[in-house]
């Protein structure tokens, strides 16, 4: 890069610094909310673009490192920009650009102090996420990881006057901390006793298979807590409804993906030698997470809670991809493992984009109508056509329908599962197709779930006719959503570029790439292994669909008259239709609640026969609360009560404890 003044990594550092400066500028502009909205957020968006470009450039470049003389004495910050962090930086930049632009409009009702705090936390959050991706030593990684958790905690509790939001924030912080401790231990295990914590040193450290399994399990637990895998997912459906929508979009779109980044970094890069049993763990957890996530999403009425559960599901799908990859790698089929890794990364990017889009859409609905409960929405397409259009793109993408991006990545994961005959072991060979079956079921359930979302919220008649002042998305909101919607389409239509770029990532961290058929394929044909095995061309597919629709329209209108009359809806001749006769969100999910009854803890309230104002209500609870967390909480209380005995309140007793501890330690060290 002789022609450029700065290396990409230096630009990334400067951008990061700029975000932090913006954060404090935001705090300084506490009395000028308009400056925050019209200058600081757009500036943040511009920096996001820079980050995205840097990340994109890094996809084709060699890894670059830099050492910043910051931090503790003799412990400088190591930063590194390689292909893997490039992928996630591009995602961070791309998504946060849209979210920042969207925020200019979204936060317009906030008063000065609140807005200033949001600006501070928001930009710190962005900077800390970028730092997580750039960190090249465990120490900096943990600092950035902690900063990310704290900044997002404050963002979640922006509306801290509502008690639920405070408890949601608390649950989030608790899970984040548990995860962080596990990650810390994992780094401790990996370094293997020589006290060097740079990632380079961690890569070199020799580990016995047993210790590396311990490190894997710790890292999987720690990052899984952040990603929202089962059963550590409970913070997601609490935190997302509490947080302002742009923040939810960032958290779901990018932050939980940093956990995926962490997993890949630790497992593929730092540990290096992958055992297939790890893959089985990831695969099983991923399948369970995906299935439970979508089942719970289906039964939710709060749109943002629903989206949060759907994020859990998508994390499950990503874990399925990673798990498959690890199984293949561990069994000595690195080329097939690469396919799984690429599929997982691709799905990570896709989910980041369409989930951010859907959260922004939910935010736009909330801002416009004040509603989050699907049971009250209806007919919004007539009042907010732009939001409806963008949401439709998001809905079609997340439902994995061709030719959008969700389909492309799930297609790759299916292709990976179909490579199962290469495996030697009988158990594995039979479990991998079961995973494919679960993935297929999850995909179809997702479509059901998002038909419910779109159909209930946007189509039909207005359920609440008193609602007059609802409006479409404002200009900045439109730009934010349009950016993401276009990304969905582009990523869906040009998967070949994406997998070629992701192939670089795989080459740089595992040393293996896709087979030559896949690499040499031109931009039209997506070929995972070889042309005879499978191919898919979204562009041709899209062109043929569109032209078939147009030909049909043309022929029908050419050959027959186009007479059209308008009239009241027929509805089998039933004359008095009210909006209340439509299916509600509860009704739509009723069959699912019934079929998967044992999964849910549903309590229904039926009206009595002579009730004059009958009301039916149903609540669905996550069984993990009662079954797991409340038990842990009770156990903790019990243990604390038992330990309470040692609390005497007299100072010399405490001194005695210290003495005993000191002597015990001295004996131990001796």
């Amino acid at each position, binding site marked *: 890069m002789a022609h450029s003044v700065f290396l990409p990594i230096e630009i990334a550092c400067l951008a990061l610094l700029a975000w932090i400066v913006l954060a404090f500028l935001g705090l300084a502009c506490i009395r000028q909310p308009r400056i925050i909205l019209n200058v600081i957020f757009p500036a943040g968006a511009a920096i996001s673009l820079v980050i995205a470009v840097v990340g994109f450039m890094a996809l084709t470049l060699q890894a670059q490192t830099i050492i910043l003389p910051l931090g503790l004495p003799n412990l400088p910050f190591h930063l590194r920009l390689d292909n893997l962090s490039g992928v996630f930086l591009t995602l961070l930049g791309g998504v946060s650009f849209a979210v920042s632009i969207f925020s200019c409009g979204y936060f317009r009702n906030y008063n000065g102090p609140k807005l200033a705090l949001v600006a501070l936390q928001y930009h710190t959050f962005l900077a800390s996420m970028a730092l997580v991706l750039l960190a090249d030593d465990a120490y900096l990684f943990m600092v950035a990881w902690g900063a990310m958790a704290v900044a997002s905690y404050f963002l979640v509790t922006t509306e801290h006057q509502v008690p639920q939001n405070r408890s949601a924030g608390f649950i989030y912080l608790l899970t984040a901390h548990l995860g962080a401790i596990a990650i810390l231990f994992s780094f401790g295990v990996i370094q293997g006793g020589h006290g060097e914590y740079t990632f380079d040193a961690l890569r070199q450290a020799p580990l016995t298979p047993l210790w590396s399994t311990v490190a894997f399990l710790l890292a999987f637990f720690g990052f899984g807590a952040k990603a929202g895998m089962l059963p550590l997912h409970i913070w997601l459906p609490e935190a997302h409804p509490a947080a302002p929508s742009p923040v939810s979009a960032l958290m779901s779109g990018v932050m939980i993906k940093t956990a995926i980044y962490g997993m890949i970094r630790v497992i593929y890069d730092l540990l290096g030698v992958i055992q297939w049993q790890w893959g089985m763990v990831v695969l099983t957890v991923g399948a369970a997470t995906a299935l439970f996530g979508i089942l719970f999403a289906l039964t939710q009425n709060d749109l943002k809670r629903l989206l949060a559960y759907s994020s859990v599901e998508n994390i499950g799908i990503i874990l399925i991809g990673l798990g498959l990859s690890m199984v293949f790698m561990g069994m000595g089929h690195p080329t097939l493992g690469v396919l799984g890794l690429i599929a997982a990364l691709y799905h990570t990017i896709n989910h980041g984009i369409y989930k951010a889009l859907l959260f922004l859409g939910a935010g736009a609905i909330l801002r416009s109508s004040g509603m989050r409960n699907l049971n009250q929405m209806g007919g919004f397409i007539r009042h907010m056509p732009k939001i409806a259009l963008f949401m439709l793109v998001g809905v079609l993408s997340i439902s994995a329908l061709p030719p959008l991006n969700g389909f492309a990545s799930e297609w790759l994961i299916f292709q990976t599962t179909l490579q199962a005959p290469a495996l030697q072991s009988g*158990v594995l060979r*039979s479990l991998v197709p*079961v995973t494919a079956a679960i993935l297929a079921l999850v995909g179809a359930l997702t479509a059901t779930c998002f038909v419910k979302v779109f159909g209930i919220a946007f189509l039909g008649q207005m359920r609440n006719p008193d609602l007059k002042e609802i409006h479409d998305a404002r200009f900045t909101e439109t730009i934010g959503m349009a950016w993401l919607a276009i990304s969905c389409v582009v990523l869906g239509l040009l998967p070949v570029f994406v997998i070629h770029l992701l192939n670089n990532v795989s080459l740089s961290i595992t040393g293996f790439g896709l087979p030559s058929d896949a690499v040499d394929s031109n931009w039209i044909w997506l070929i995972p292994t070889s042309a005879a095995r499978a191919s898919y061309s979204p562009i041709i597919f899209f062109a043929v669909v569109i032209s078939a629709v147009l030909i049909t329209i043309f022929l029908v209108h050419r050959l027959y008259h186009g007479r059209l009359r308008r009239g009241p809806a027929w509805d089998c001749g039933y004359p008095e239709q009210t909006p209340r006769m439509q299916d509600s969100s509860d009704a739509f999910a009723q069959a699912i609640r019934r079929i998967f009854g044992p999964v849910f803890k549903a309590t229904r309230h039926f009206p009595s026969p002579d009730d004059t104002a009958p009301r039916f209500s149903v609540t669905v609870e996550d069984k993990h609360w009662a079954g797991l967390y409340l038990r842990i909480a009770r156990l903790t209380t019990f243990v604390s009560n038992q330990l309470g005995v040692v609390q005497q309140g007299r100072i010399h007793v405490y001194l005695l404890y210290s003495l005993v501890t000191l002597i015990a330690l001295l004996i131990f060290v001796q």
Partner: protein
Amino acid sequence: MTIPLSGQLINLSAAFLLLVGFAMLAQRRILSLINLFAMQSFVLVLSTLIVAISTHQHHLYYSVGITFVLKVILIPWLLHRFIRKLNLKWDVETHIAIPTTMLLGIVLVIFAFNLAQPISQLSGTVTRHTLGIAIAGVLLAFLMMITRRKAVSQVIGFLAMENGLFFAATSATYGMPLVVELGIALDVLVAMVIFGIFFFHIREAFDSLDLKHMEQLKED
């Protein structure tokens, strides 16, 4: 890897055996259950016949005849008669929802295959892969007996289990000695008669064939 045609046909009938086993798990109606059992026995007869023809084992022809007479004609006919006599028209009641049962069935199939894998690798016969299916058939029949409430379906489960064992014998070792087979056939027949008497007694004692009434027999 090429398998001779007879081997392929035996594999096919093994698959059908498993298919019918699952159909029996999913079936709610008692009459269809009996017909499915007859069908399973018929598939068994066919597969035994194929083994007999392809390996020229003459004693297998006898077992084909016995199985056909006993399991395809006599026992289903007896069961139909019982049902008419006892005037049973109800659907089969299950303890567990049918999809869950089938899911358990799939788990059992995977288990059975993995169990059979080392054994079938030792075996040199063309039909070695079918041992797993035979074991799966036995386990599925067991599952059916566990999940069903009524006595008749339990008897059918028992008979299906015997079918699985028989198939294991023909597929793994080209059949048992004729004496053993005759003995088993006789046993099955006697068991049928005893079960028949048993049905009538249960019905007389409890006015129903629902086995949950048997719980009353327990002394507290």
